[in-house]
């Protein structure tokens, strides 16, 4: 690894953090405006144009609030939970590719922070860790409602981890690779993963809701039942970290679902020809520059897809009521889990006889 690669990696880390955190701020705005739009209200509209600066105002408010720690909490874990909760979704985002490799000064720079041969497994590993800050936070704050919330979160996230993992496994069977770049190329050549394997797409999509604690499955928070669940005792910036982590996890999940099932950074199957045509309009001779310009299209298309799935998250949240705890468990263990297992078998047969024949 030479200097350019190290510098590029550092720049990528900074960019990923900066873009995701800005996107988080924008997403909270989008959530509130979207909710207001669905509910026939106006939403934030006072701070800045269209209330766009509202997240900034909120952030300032969060910073200046008193940082309160409950007396009988376990202080170390109480403070560790919000830090962990934001770190983990960021770590999961490390190996998601946002475009093809970039070429700068004869160096090939992958458009993701870490390049692993088995990138998808790393993502799954880190999403599996997401349950820990919730459990730690709920337990350490020494509140019965919080403990209930963290217990709910633990069982829910573990239940849905399995069906999510199995849905993913069936997609790995189809693509025949762990490399997410390869998966996107496969979809570019053939068709989107959601058409090859719609059951897995549905299971994965629903499991994402349970994993990120969004509304039909927001029972760990359940503000009318167990008040605010695991982050009941958190205030000021510590609460904001929990809040932000939800959005980072949503962005990560959107990127993941876009990559696995909806063509990732290639806008539509076969659309790259059009993109290449547009790039050719600039009539630049250098193939490398053309390739790098092409990457901008890819970045745009994955951002578009992430934005769409974020909107779906918001849309669903403000439409449906909440599940009951045991109903969600029933759905996870009794329906999605067997379905996902059967689907793995089915996809094994399909990929053996039709795809890799």
């Amino acid at each position, binding site marked *: 690894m030479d200097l350019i690669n190290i510098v590029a990696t550092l720049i990528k880390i900074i960019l990923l953090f900066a873009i995701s955190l800005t996107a988080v701020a924008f997403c909270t705005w989008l959530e509130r405006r979207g*909710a207001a739009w*669905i*509910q*026939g*209200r106006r939403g934030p509209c006072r701070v800045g144009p269209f209330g766009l600066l509202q997240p900034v105002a909120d952030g300032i408010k969060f910073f200046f609030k008193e940082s309160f720690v409950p007396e009988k909490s376990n202080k170390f874990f109480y403070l560790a939970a919000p830090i962990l909760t934001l770190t983990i979704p960021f770590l999961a985002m490390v190996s998601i590719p946002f475009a093809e490799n970039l070429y700068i000064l004869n160096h090939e720079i992958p458009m993701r922070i870490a390049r692993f041969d088995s990138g998808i497994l790393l993502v799954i590993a880190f999403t599996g860790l997401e349950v820990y800050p919730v459990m730690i936070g709920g337990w350490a704050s*020494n509140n*019965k*409602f919080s403990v*209930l919330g963290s*217990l*709910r979160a633990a069982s829910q996230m573990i239940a849905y981890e399995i069906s999510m993992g199995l849905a993913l496994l069936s997609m790995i069977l189809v693509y025949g690779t762990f490399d997410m770049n390869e998966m996107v190329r496969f979809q570019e050549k053939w068709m989107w993963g959601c058409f090859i394997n719609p059951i897995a797409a549905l299971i994965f999509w629903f499991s994402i809701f349970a994993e990120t604690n969004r*509304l*039909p499955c*927001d*029972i760990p928070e*359940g*503000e*009318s*039942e*167990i*008040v605010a669940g695991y982050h009941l005792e958190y205030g000021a910036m510590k609460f904001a970290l929990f809040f932000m982590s939800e959005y980072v996890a949503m962005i990560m999940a959107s990127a993941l679902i876009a990559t696995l099932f909806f063509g990732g950074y290639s806008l539509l199957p076969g659309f790259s020809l059009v993109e290449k045509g547009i790039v050719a309009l600039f009539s630049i001779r250098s193939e490398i520059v053309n390739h790098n310009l092409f990457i901008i299209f890819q970045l745009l298309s994955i951002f578009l897809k992430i934005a769409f799935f974020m909107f779906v998250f918001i849309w669903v949240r*403000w*439409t*449906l*009521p*909440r*599940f*009951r*705890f*045991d*109903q969600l468990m029933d759905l996870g263990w009794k329906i999605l889990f067997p379905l996902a297992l059967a689907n793995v078998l089915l996809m094994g047969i399909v990929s053996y006889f039709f795809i890799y024949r």
Partner: protein
Amino acid sequence: MKKTIKETIKETIKESKNSVDYKNITDFYNPNILINIGPSHPATHGTLRLMCQLNGEVIEDTKFEIGYLHRGKEKLGEVKTYHQWFVYTDRLNYCSALINNIAYAMTVENLLEISITARCMWIRMICMELSRIIDHIICVAINALDMGALTIFWHLYRWREEAYTMIEGMCGMRLTTTYARIGGMFYDVPEDLHDNLKKFCERFPKALDEMETLLTTNRIWIDRTKGVGRLSKEDAIKYSTSGPVLRASGVDFDLRRDRPYYAYADIDFDVVVANNGDVYDRYLVRTEEMRQSIRILKQCSKHLQSANGPLWVDDRRVFIPDKIDVYTKMEVMIHHFKIFMEGIDVPPGENYTAVEGPNGEVGFYIVSRGGPKAWRLRIKAPSFLHFQMMENTIKGVKIPDAISILGSLNIIAGELDR
């Protein structure tokens, strides 16, 4: 001999094991944890306290505590004159203040043996049906809100605001109306009421349709509400429930039809009855009752437009003269002074009058021994009777179900504690 710390702790635990407090000390580490839902919990929507002993998510034992909003209204009825007590009726079931106003005015009128004018009666009926809609909106929307469907809350609350704007046009206030007076209403209705009512009657059912597309056939909503908090027909009668809760359990009883007051006997409307008595049926009954109220409103509006007689009953004992006459005519001023400084002289006797409130039977029982104040005043509040049956209903259900049952009963703390 000095004890070591370890020994002291051991002794304390030994002692406390025998004491009553031991259970409380170890609650947190006990599988049967004790949890307080309320008095300030987001789902109680008022100050109630449900002490629940949990096993995991299941509520094994409950104990309820009421009285956080007790203001001694019945006692106040004995020290305030009949007119002064009107303001207190607003604060009983503050979601439908008008029905309380009118029911109280009816009771006093029955004591005085006054029959109000036709115009006043139609205005009162419009008021009652409007406030029934408002109260049902609150119950259905809050019930949905407690189960996470916030959008329904906002969509319906818009229509609640419209209704409140109409009420504001009638009496100048939105929540605490104090509109009725003994023998009449404080103001006549504004001219634009009929237009507004017509608009409301046209558009509000559409909002209800919208809500029903979001909830009635929603799988999650059905799973959450069907079979939850089931109250059998016998139990519903045994616990003396009334109103939508009783009708959802399959008892076909509505005071408006079975013991008609005012012109409900001449009005065309259906009594909504369901079978199962669960949260889902209560929701359906309330939704359909809102549609029936719209039907009644349409008819009442038509009748009111043709009833152009006087608003006030022609009885010098209760008649409140116009302000302009009070300022310009001597006799009228004296009359006004006497009515408000001394109060009206109600003949000795007792009366119980009940109307069909949105939650159930709202009744006032007044014992008078003459003079301007009641000797004893008693309020029959449906929330109080509904709340007593809840203690048994939520045993053995999960916390989310307890919340949805609480929402479906529409317990209003102001009415519960009085």
